[in-house]
C-alpha cells in the first residue's frame, strides 16, 4: 500500500468520500458533516494525508469579501491510487476514535 501502514477506518472513509468525485474540491466543514466527524478528528486525518502527499490543498479565493478564504481538499494522484487500492479491499468497521498515526 505505497509503503504506508493501512489507514484507520476513519481515514479510509475519508479517502473513499474524497474519491467519489476525485476532481471536486471539498471544504473541511462539508467533510465533517458528511463523515459525521468533529474537526478534532477530521483535521488530523487531513494533515496526515497531506503530509504523505495523498491530498492536494488550495485556498478558495472566491469567498465573499466579509469571509476569510477557505481551505479546500481533494485527492492527489497517489491519493487516488490509494483510494483504488482501498476500494479493492473489504471495508473495516469504523473504530470509535481517531488517533494520530505518526507524522
Amino acid at each position: 500500500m505505497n509503503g504506508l501502514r493501512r489507514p484507520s477506518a476513519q481515514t479510509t472513509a475519508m479517502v473513499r468520500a474524497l474519491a467519489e468525485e476525485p476532481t471536486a474540491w471539498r471544504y473541511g466543514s462539508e467533510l465533517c458533516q458528511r463523515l459525521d466527524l468533529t474537526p478534532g478528528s477530521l483535521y488530523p486525518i487531513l494533515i496526515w494525508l497531506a503530509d504523505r502527499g495523498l491530498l492536494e490543498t488550495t485556498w478558495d479565493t472566491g469567498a465573499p469579501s466579509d469571509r476569510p478564504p477557505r481551505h479546500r481538499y481533494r485527492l492527489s494522484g497517489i491519493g487516488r491510487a490509494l483510494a483504488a487500492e482501498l476500494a479493492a479491499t473489504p471495508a473495516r468497521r469504523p473504530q470509535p476514535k481517531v488517533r494520530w498515526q505518526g507524522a
Partner: protein
Amino acid sequence: MRRSRTRRNLLIATAAAVVAAWAVLYVVVITTAPLSYDPASESAAKVNREFALLLAVPTALWVIAALLLVDRWWSRTGVRLAATDPPGRLLAVAVAALPSHRREWGVAMHAELAEIGGRSARWRFALSSTRAMLRMPPVGGWTVLALTAAVVVAVVAAAGPAAQAAAPGLGVFSVTFVALVGAMVVVAVARLRRPPGRVPAETVVVAGVVAAAVVMTVIFLLRDPAAARYLPAANAVFLAVVLAGCLWIAVAAPRSRGAGRVAPFIGIAAGVVWVGGQLLLMRAASVEPPVESPAQNLVDMVAAIWVMLGHAGVFFVPALVAGWIGRSFRSGLQAGIWAVVATLPLNYAVWLHEALGLYATHGGLLWFGDGAPEGENLSLVVSWGLRIIPLVGIPFAVIGAAIGPYAARPVVPGSPAGASARSPARR
C-alpha cells in the same frame, strides 16, 4: 464606538495593573527588607515616603511603555479580535501558537468557523479544532521528541551534582540553566520543520556573550569559593533565567526583512558601546593611588553618569534609531530587545572580570567601595546589572521605538517610498 470604549477600558486596565504591580513591589520591599535610616534625624514613615516617591519614576515609565505596547497591539490585533466572538478569539489564539509550518491548517480551521452558525455549534467547532491543533504531531514524530526530552532530563540530573562538585554554589544555577536550555531544545525539536541552516550572526554574538557570562560565573566561584554565599538559590535561579532568556530570545526572535533587518545589529552595537565605554571609564576612574585633579574629577563624574544613566540611553537610542531607519515601531522594538539581550550578559561578564582584577590589585568592590568581601561583587552585579538596569531601562526601549518612526522624514504621498509606506502609527 463600542470598540473605542473597549480600547479605553483596556488601556485603563493596563495602567492599573502596572501601578498595582509596582505597589506590590513597594509593599514587599518595605516589609521584607525595611529601609535603613538614622533615627536621630529621620523616621521610618519619612524614608518609606521618599522611597515611594522614588519608585513613582519607574512606575510612570512602565505605565507609558505598557500603554504604548497595548495601544500598538490593539491597532494591529486587538481590534480584529474584538470584532469576533469568543470561539473565534479562542481559535485565533490557538492559531497564533502553532509553529509556522502548521499555521496554514489553523487558519483553515479558523476560516471554516466562519461558516458555522449558532453559538453552541461554534463553541463545539472551536473547542474541537483547538484540540486538533494541540495534538498536531511534531515533524520528527513523538518518539524523537520523547527521546530528546529523556536526554535533556538525564543531562539536567547530571549537571547539578557535577557543577556543585566543581564549584560550590554552582549547583542551583547549573540545574536551572541547563533545564531551561534543554526545554528550548525540546521546543525546537517539537516545532522546527527542519534543522536550521545558517545561524544568524546576531544569534551567534548573543550566544557567545551568554557563554562568556556563564564562564565568568564559573571562574568567579572557582577563584573565590566563599563567594557561593553571595549567590543564594533565589539569585542563582534568577541569574539562570535571565541568561537562558537572553539566549532564547536570540535564537527564537522573529527576523525582519528590508530596513528592519539591521535592528538587531543596532541593538547589539549599542550594548557593546555602553559596556565598552563603562569598561574604559571604570579603568580610568580607578587609578591607584587616587589622584585629585580636575581631569580625574571629570572622569569620575562622566563614569558615574555613564553607569547611573547610561542604561536608559543604551535601550532608548537603538530603539529610536532602528525605528527611524525602519520607519516602524516594530523595528525600534526589535532593536531595543536585542540591546537588552546583548547588554545584560555582556555587562555581567565584564563586571565579574573587572571585579576579580580590581579586587586582586586594590582589594575593593567594583563601583561600591572598599571593605567588603570579594564575593559581594556577585550579589551586586545580579542586583544592579540584572535587576535595576532592565527595570529602569526597558521602558526607554519602548518609548524610543514609539518616537523613532515619527522622527523619520515624512513620506511624500505618491512618491516611490510613499507607495509602500504606511502610517507609523499602524506599523
